[in-house]
């Protein structure tokens, strides 16, 4: 009797019942979708931070050159001269500079840092940018068309093979090529001189340059054998070529210098202490922790983050409240319409309890239906967020000290790439033409920009919460309606004649 009466009643007021269920479904679906998007965004933020600074690397130490020093832009030991008088002559120039406008740090400082209290380990790495220009210098009408100038830029990172668990090639950064990385570390650690001339190449650079394992890649005049290809996590700021640190150092002319130190603290509670110690040890250096970075993530990712966390959440809550109120009002209205019905039931001996249970049951069913629909909507919404969301960009500016110089430098090379004038802008990782690889990419590493695809992962807890919300909404409406039904006086109800 109970369920028959219940289902018939819901069928009778099918329209208002579906409004209630759909309202609850919308609220619940939005909660699920927004939550999924928000956790996707925070996962993305985590990924950005991890990929830029490495998992297990709690701090990074860098240093911006003192103005006027010319810092990173001094030419390396050139393999060719460079002057205006050579118009029309074939040229082949290559130079290696410290990447990102970073000043060098001495190898001693790495050791000093590793001895600090609370520091588990530290390692240095050297990020370099290589620019090579070959062809005929433009300006000569005779030969400009025959052999146009081509510019090739790529990034090189010197990795300390003695610390495989730290630094840019630590395992958690690597998406593909773990075994190549492992054998590279093993070979370089063995230390024979031929083993030192081994390189790892990023898959994208390999594709662009048609390199594969066994090929040769030339960095600043030195040939390295490609041991394997490696792909870092989608959002990682990968380098095109990885060399043993000592090789990178000798190529750049800085025998024992690095430009980034990766530091791992004993425990996360030590991080701020360690940060202070390093800062004290090296007053001019920039010491960055993951916590600092999180607040410095800007760009569309942070927009998405605030969108999901504030606007989306409030929207979901607002719609949920509206759905609750709507459910309560419509349930209450249905009780009002059924005053005579309930009065009659009381007159034939039904207990108030039983009538309240009937009303409550009706609303509960609507809550369940709304919850089920809401899960469907939420899953669909989360799926659409993952599918349709434009790639988001995140920019991390660890120092905030911008330098306009790289733009000017890029400008000197004709045809040097679309990004030439954008030296102060955000770098574009991954975007590349052949010789047109952006100079901005190469030089403008005052900030790191990462483009990644947003996902919207669903968690069981959130689905459970959503169903609880829907049932709660149904219960609330039912209790409200039931309370009204309970207060109803049968005598008054029965006096009503239509």
């Amino acid at each position: 009797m109970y369920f028959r009466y219940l289902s018939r009643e819901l069928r009778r007021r099918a329209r208002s019942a579906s409004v209630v269920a759909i309202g609850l479904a919308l609220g619940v679906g939005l909660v699920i979708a927004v939550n999924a998007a928000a956790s996707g965004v925070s996962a993305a933020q985590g990924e950005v931070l991890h990929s830029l600074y490495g998992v297990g690397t709690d701090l990074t130490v860098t240093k911006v050159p003192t103005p006027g020093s010319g810092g990173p832009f001094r030419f390396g030991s050139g393999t060719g001269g460079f002057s205006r008088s050579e118009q029309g002559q074939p040229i082949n120039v290559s130079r290696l500079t410290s990447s990102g406008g970073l000043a060098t740090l001495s190898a001693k400082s790495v050791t000093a840092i590793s001895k600090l209290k609370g520091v588990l380990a530290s390692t240095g790495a050297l990020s370099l940018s290589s620019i090579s220009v070959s062809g005929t210098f433009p300006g000569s009408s005779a030969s400009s068309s025959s052999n146009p100038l081509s510019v090739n830029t790529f990034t090189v990172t010197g990795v300390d093979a003695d610390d495989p668990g730290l630094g840019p090639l630590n395992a958690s950064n690597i998406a593909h090529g773990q075994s190549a990385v492992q054998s590279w570390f093993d070979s370089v650690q063995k230390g024979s001189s031929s083993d030192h001339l081994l390189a790892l190449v990023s898959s994208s650079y390999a594709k662009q340059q048609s390199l594969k394992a066994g090929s040769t890649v030339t960095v600043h005049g030195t040939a390295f054998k490609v041991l394997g290809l490696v792909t870092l996590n989608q959002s990682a700021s990968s380098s095109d070529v990885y060399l043993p640190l000592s090789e990178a150092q000798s190529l750049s002319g800085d025998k024992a210098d690095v430009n980034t130190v990766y530091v791992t603290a004993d425990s996360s509670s030590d991080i701020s202490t360690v940060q202070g110690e390093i800062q004290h040890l090296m007053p001019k250096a920039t010491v960055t922790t993951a916590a600092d970075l999180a607040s410095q993530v800007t760009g569309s990712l942070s927009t998405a983050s605030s969108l999901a966390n504030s606007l989306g959440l409030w929207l979901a809550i607002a719609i949920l409240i509206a759905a609750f109120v709507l459910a309560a009002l419509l349930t209450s209205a249905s009780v009002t319409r059924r005053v005579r019905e309930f009065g009659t039931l009381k007159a034939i001996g039904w207990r108030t309890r039983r009538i309240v249970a009937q009303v409550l049951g009706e609303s509960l069913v609507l809550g369940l239906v709304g919850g089920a629909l809401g899960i469907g909507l939420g899953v669909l919404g989360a799926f659409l967020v993952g599918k349709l969301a434009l790639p988001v960009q995140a920019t991390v500016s660890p120092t905030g000290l911008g330098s306009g110089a790289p733009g000017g430098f890029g400008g000197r090379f004709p045809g040097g790439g679309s990004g030439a004038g954008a030296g102060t802008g955000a770098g574009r990782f991954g975007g590349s033409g052949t010789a047109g690889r952006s100079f901005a990419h190469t030089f403008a590493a005052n900030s790191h920009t990462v483009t990644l695809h947003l996902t919207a992962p669903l968690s069981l807890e959130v689905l459970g919460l959503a169903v609880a919300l829907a049932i709660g909404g149904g219960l609330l409406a039912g209790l409200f309606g039931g309370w009204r039904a309970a207060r109803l006086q049968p005598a008054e109800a029965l006096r009503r004649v239509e």
Partner: protein
Amino acid sequence: MYQLTQLSRVFTKGRARITALKDVDLAIADGEFLTVQGPTGHGKTTLLLLLGGLDRPSSGHVIFDGQDLGAMPESRLVDVRARNFGFVFQNYNLMPTLTAQENVEAALVPLRTRAEERRSRALAALTEVGLRERAGHFPPELSGGEQQRVAIARALVKEPRVILADEPTGNLDEVARGEIVALVEGLWQRRGMTVVVVTHDTQVARRAPRTALIDHGALTLRYNRPPTGSAPAGPGRSRPAEAS
């Protein structure tokens, strides 16, 4: 069966005080057929609701089987209602979403009758009112007279001590009215139920041995035929044959 003493019901709405019933004294014998007649708005429904334990007196007592309905807690009153009183209303008051049979079964729900027994008793009651074939029909598919017969089946299915009917023929034409009156009279005669019928209709009112005339909340009795052996001899005297 019923003993009403100094029964009054006063409604207060803000300043207004409406005396619907005033100092009513009445005894209704077990197995009596009583009709209640009077102008509209003079307190007939109020009296019926008090008899059915659906309303409480402002003063005075409604004693049913020695128990004061007005002083009874609601939880006990619900039980008394469920077992003893069968209501029939002018507007039939059937649940529109339930079939004729389910409407009748609804009266057995508070008695916790098992499903099959509920079914068979409901069908028996519908057979008694001549609607066995309409058991699966919904109220909107039935005529007014048929709906009222379903309502009567719902009232009689639990075999109550008392049938309380408020203008059961008020919305019906003459033919249907005759059917309904015959049904109610049959319950009284064949089953010995106590029957109280409120009506505007003098013809209907005169079918009962006694009529309670209500005028401005005050009650007087009219005897429609001289007291005989088969009907109560007068107010306050029970028929010895129908022991409770």
